[in-house]
């Protein structure tokens, strides 16, 4: 395999060279623990860079620096937000509102809370994956303590009306958390305008390093710490700060703020050209989720009728084209996508969903090879398939 075409940017992105450059001195030179900044100038220096990173994140979200807490990634941020709010506010109520299309990092904690006596109410989503704010309003009772609804879905890219949902939450004095792991660095986020109380983000989704993320927590929010220990991050997130990762996250945020609009425009064009070509060349393909502005610009998710995704991805991979995801049916491993189920994709097609996610390192030149190889692979697999009768 020479030059690989990578189409799984929603799973993870390569680290931008400028981000890595910025991180390098923090491994073996500026390595001190920032905790002892009063007595050590090495620590103070590291602490200054960490605070610079915090500022970059705050700028990207229109938050205040004291509202940013560093974590180990999106999963931790989601766990910390949801469990932290639930545990701290149990005396006020035990109802939480969410959706069926959340990431597992939200759904699994909600299941755990349900076992602990919380009631989880799920707002329905429509066939494009959208939540209607009015439906959220209907589920609110005086026992509701938290609404957790993602900013954009990682599978089908639907961007939710979180500004309105946030407004409803605010009006009812309910905390609003949003999993913005797929949007931060890609779509403008403004925690003030959007009435967000808690927001999860993860560096490796926007060209930062893996193993680091952040949680925005609005000032004066009543939240219990999830990771307990030495009291770092003003007691909300203990553990020696991952200074290398944090500096990388900060740099990724700074670059995203400056270049996001330009990149996303380009990405959207590549995505649209790609899907038009696929639809032109391959029969019986349909899009999952919405067209237009309310979809992440890099996200494509479609069904190729009559074949299963896993052998298609393997075939494409053999040809140097990396497409992530795909549902396998074998023991213990993946169920068909809970998101495709939630938007009522027919049972016949649940294992036929393909997600391609474009990033800033993709180029227009890659569209043709993708389409040619996809067409060929689909033909081969359809010829093999008992579910594809067209060739009879």
């Amino acid at each position, binding site marked *: 395999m020479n030059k690989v075409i990578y189409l799984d940017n929603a799973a993870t992105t390569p680290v931008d060279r400028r981000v890595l450059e910025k991180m390098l001195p923090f491994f073996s030179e500026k390595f001190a623990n920032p905790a002892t900044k009063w007595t050590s100038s090495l620590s103070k220096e590291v602490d200054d860079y960490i605070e610079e990173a915090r500022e970059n994140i705050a700028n990207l979200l229109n938050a205040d620096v004291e509202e940013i807490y560093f974590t180990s990634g999106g999963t931790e941020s989601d766990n910390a937000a949801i469990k932290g709010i639930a545990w701290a506010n149990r005396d006020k109520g035990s109802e939480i509102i969410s959706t069926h299309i959340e990431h597992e990092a939200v759904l699994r904690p909600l299941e755990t809370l349900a076992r602990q006596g919380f009631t989880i109410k799920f707002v329905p989503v429509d066939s494009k994956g959208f939540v209607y704010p009015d439906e959220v309003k209907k589920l609110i009772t005086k026992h509701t303590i938290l609404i957790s609804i993602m900013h954009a879905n990682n599978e089908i890219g639907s961007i939710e009306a979180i500004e309105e949902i946030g407004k409803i939450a605010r009006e009812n004095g309910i905390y609003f958390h949003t999993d913005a792991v797929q949007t931060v660095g890609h779509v403008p986020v403004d925690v003030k305008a959007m009435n967000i109380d808690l927001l999860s983000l993860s560096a490796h989704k926007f060209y930062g390093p893996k193993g680091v993320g952040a949680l925005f927590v609005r000032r004066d929010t009543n939240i219990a710490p999830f990771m307990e220990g030495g009291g770092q991050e003003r007691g909300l997130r203990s553990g020696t700060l991952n200074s290398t990762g944090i500096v990388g996250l900060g740099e990724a945020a700074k670059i995203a703020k400056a270049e996001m609009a330009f990149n996303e425009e380009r990405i959207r064009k590549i995505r649209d050209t790609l899907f038009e070509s696929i639809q032109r060349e391959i029969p019986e393909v349909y899009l999952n989720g919405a067209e237009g502005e309310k979809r992440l610009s890099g996200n494509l998710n479609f069904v190729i009728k009559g074949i299963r995704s896993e052998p298609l991805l*393997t075939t494409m991979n053999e040809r140097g084209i990396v497409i992530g995801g795909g549902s*396998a049916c074998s023991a213990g491993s993946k169920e068909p996508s809970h998101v495709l189920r939630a938007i009522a994709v027919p049972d016949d097609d649940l294992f036929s969903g393909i997600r391609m996610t474009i990033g800033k390192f993709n180029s227009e030149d890659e569209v043709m090879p993708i389409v040619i190889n996809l067409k060929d692979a689909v033909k081969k697999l359809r010829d*093999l398939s*008992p579910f594809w009768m067209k060739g009879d």
Partner: protein
Amino acid sequence: MYPDIVMEHFMHPRNVGKIKNPTSVGEFENEARAKAVFYVVVEDGVVTDIKYQVAGCPFAIAVCSLISEYAKTKRVEELKVFSMDDVKRFFEIPEDKEDCIKLSINAFLNAIIPLT
């Protein structure tokens, strides 16, 4: 990833397709809607032609292909005891892919066993 022989058969599956007037047809579908169908022609207790259709992961596909080559010219009596152990002689089976192999074997046996 995949054992070499699986990859080879997955990328170039042998004996793909349907047979118009088969002696027997066997199919198997799992709860997750993966499916294999075998068509066999048997003359004097010997498999003279065999084809299949399959929608499943590369393991399921490769095993159909391997079975189709293995079965041709063999006696039905011999084939009716075909099992995981026979597949194991070709490659090591990852634990979480056992069901895929069984999918193909079951479809094949569903075609063969009624003939015995």
